[in-house]
């Protein structure tokens, strides 16, 4: 369901709050209304917000586990192949491949690959980097990274009705409600 106004497609509605406790009340109500395409924007992770929004676990730990296992296997095979197969290193009659001596590198590469998986996995799941977003067109929204707390309900949500949702957000006791417009002139628009 999409709504339009004079300047273009409405991306969604933004409600501004000035404290985590007010935000918390409002978020619980939004969750209970059954919205699907909505989000909360805060300058820092607010404790307990996961439950208030109804967000469940993340796939990230499994990506990290896969990264770690890859690193471990790679390190083991690399050391065995390089020192025992491709160019056998005979040193003081020691075995060409011995597990104890291989452990430091196995450990380090496990950590390295897990860390890369965490880093790229997290940003990937979050859909970042993404330098343009309709929300950035709101001047008010700049304080989302500073000292204000926002609830955004997107126009694509099946329950979104411009006037009704605006009234609902206004009733939550925030500082302001704003209509966020996805730039209509095409030049700045990413999603068209």
């Amino acid at each position: 369901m999409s709504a339009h106004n004079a300047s273009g497609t409405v991306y969604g509605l933004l409600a501004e709050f000035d404290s985590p406790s007010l935000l918390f009340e409002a978020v619980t109500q939004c969750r209970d209304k059954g919205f699907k395409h909505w989000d909360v924007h805060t300058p820092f992770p607010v404790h307990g917000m996961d439950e208030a929004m109804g967000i469940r676990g993340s796939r990230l730990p499994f990506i990290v586990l896969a990264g770690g296992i890859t690193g471990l296997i790679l390190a083991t095979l690399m050391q065995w192949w390089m020192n025992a197969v491709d160019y056998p290193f005979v040193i003081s009659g020691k075995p060409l491949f011995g597990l104890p001596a291989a452990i430091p590198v196995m450990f380090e590469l496990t950590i390295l690959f897990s860390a890369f998986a965490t880093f790229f996995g997290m940003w990937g799941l979050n859909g970042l980097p993404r330098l343009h977003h309709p929300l950035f067109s709101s001047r008010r929204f700049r304080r989302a990274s500073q000292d204000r707390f926002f609830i955004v309900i997107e126009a694509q949500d099946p329950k979104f009705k411009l006037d009704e949702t605006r009234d609902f957000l206004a009733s939550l006791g925030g500082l302001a409600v704003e209509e966020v417009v996805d730039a209509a002139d095409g030049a700045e628009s990413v999603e068209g």
Partner: protein
Amino acid sequence: MDQTASQIQDNTSDDPTRPVELILGGNDFTTITETVSDIVLEKKTPKAWYIAIAVTASLTGMLFLMIGYLFITGVGVWGLNNPVSWGWAIVNFVFWVGIGHAGTLISAILFLLRQKWRTSINRFAEAMTIFAVICAGIFPGIHVGRVWVVYWLFPIPNYEAMWPNFRSPLLWDVFAVGTYATVSLLFWYTGMVPDLATLRDRAKGRLQQIIYGILAIGWRGSHRHWHRYEKAYLLLAGLATPLVLSVHSVVSFDFATAQLPGWHTTIFPPYFVAGAVFSGFAMVGTLLIPARKWFGLQDIITLHHLENMNKIILATGSMVGFAYATEFFIAWYGGNPNESFAFVNRAFGPYAWAYWTMVTCNVITPQLFWFKKIRVNLLAMWIMYIFVNIGMWFERFVITVSSLSRDFLPSSWAYFKPTTIDILTFVGSFGLFLTLVLLFIRFLPMIAMAEVKTVMTIADAHSGERRSVGDYHGDIPKTPEGGGDR
């Protein structure tokens, strides 16, 4: 000032029944944001910054001149001689790598232990970690002699069709330090993204908006993002914790796996890790005390934070002292004449001056932190940090040089003396380190704003509108009856 306010403002109280306010001065989210981001965006760069960076950049230039001279002449420009083939380059490498450890301890281990006070200092300490590891990485790189084949350190195919020896602790070092530098950088940058977004949103100049905008990769504080972000942060902390313990353990293997008396001991890994954290905290403190004063951050990096750091220095310093004693005990109890000679020689031989400098700085100095008056006195603690920095450099010097200079065969004994090049290279590495620190405090948020906000009383959604109390800006409590003394 009413009683409640003064109780909270002296936040160095050890009374567990009293809540410790981590952020003072009646700060709220707005003022924290302004205080930290204005240093980068609004405030005129202080003259002292330009003077400081002129000096440190010149020293950096000198470092590269010295390295250039070394490359075209060879490692003979250093004071290395026949038994002492590991000189200042290795001493400096271990010294710098050790300093980095405090950053990871603060960012990862204290995070897992839910030590909320870490948020005020973790960004700074992590930055210091990365810069220290950069300085550390230079030394083994230039120490190899034939720098044009330095890539042989890595498992890269080369014209000799030869692979590195994976049973060598020096090779483990390459992987340990390389992984450490990479993971520290990922951790640091991940932590900084929300703050870079703050700078992007507050920047007024076009160039600043573009640069911080790109660095912030479009972060918009979405809670769905925060949810995964916090999970990633926890995972990175969990990965960095065993990593940091492994790095200095592996560094200590360089020594411990050798057959040399004074090196060949199993105590080295824990002893090196404790020493690394000890030296790292001293370096964080050395830089933090002037920085918080120059940039007016006394309400964010409070005496409580510094006192906690001093307690960690006391704990790790005592571990280091205990390790020194254990080494001597084992040298006697083990009954190996070479081992006991190495230790008698260390304390009373030609390097006795270095040994006793080390003991004075590392064993005696930190014990003064048992006294609360010293733990909360800025000048006293700063002087002690300097002592610890000096002592920990000497520790590595004593371990490396005293064992090498007198090994099994008296006919090959020789005394190591550094050359001017050695000294200038080391001084130059400080230039590089401090240049990077100065650039960091000028262009990046030196306090983790988003993290500091989470530990403020007002961040708790269930605390109502309670604000952090107080108008306290000095470091000396104005009302002594306010409860500072136990």
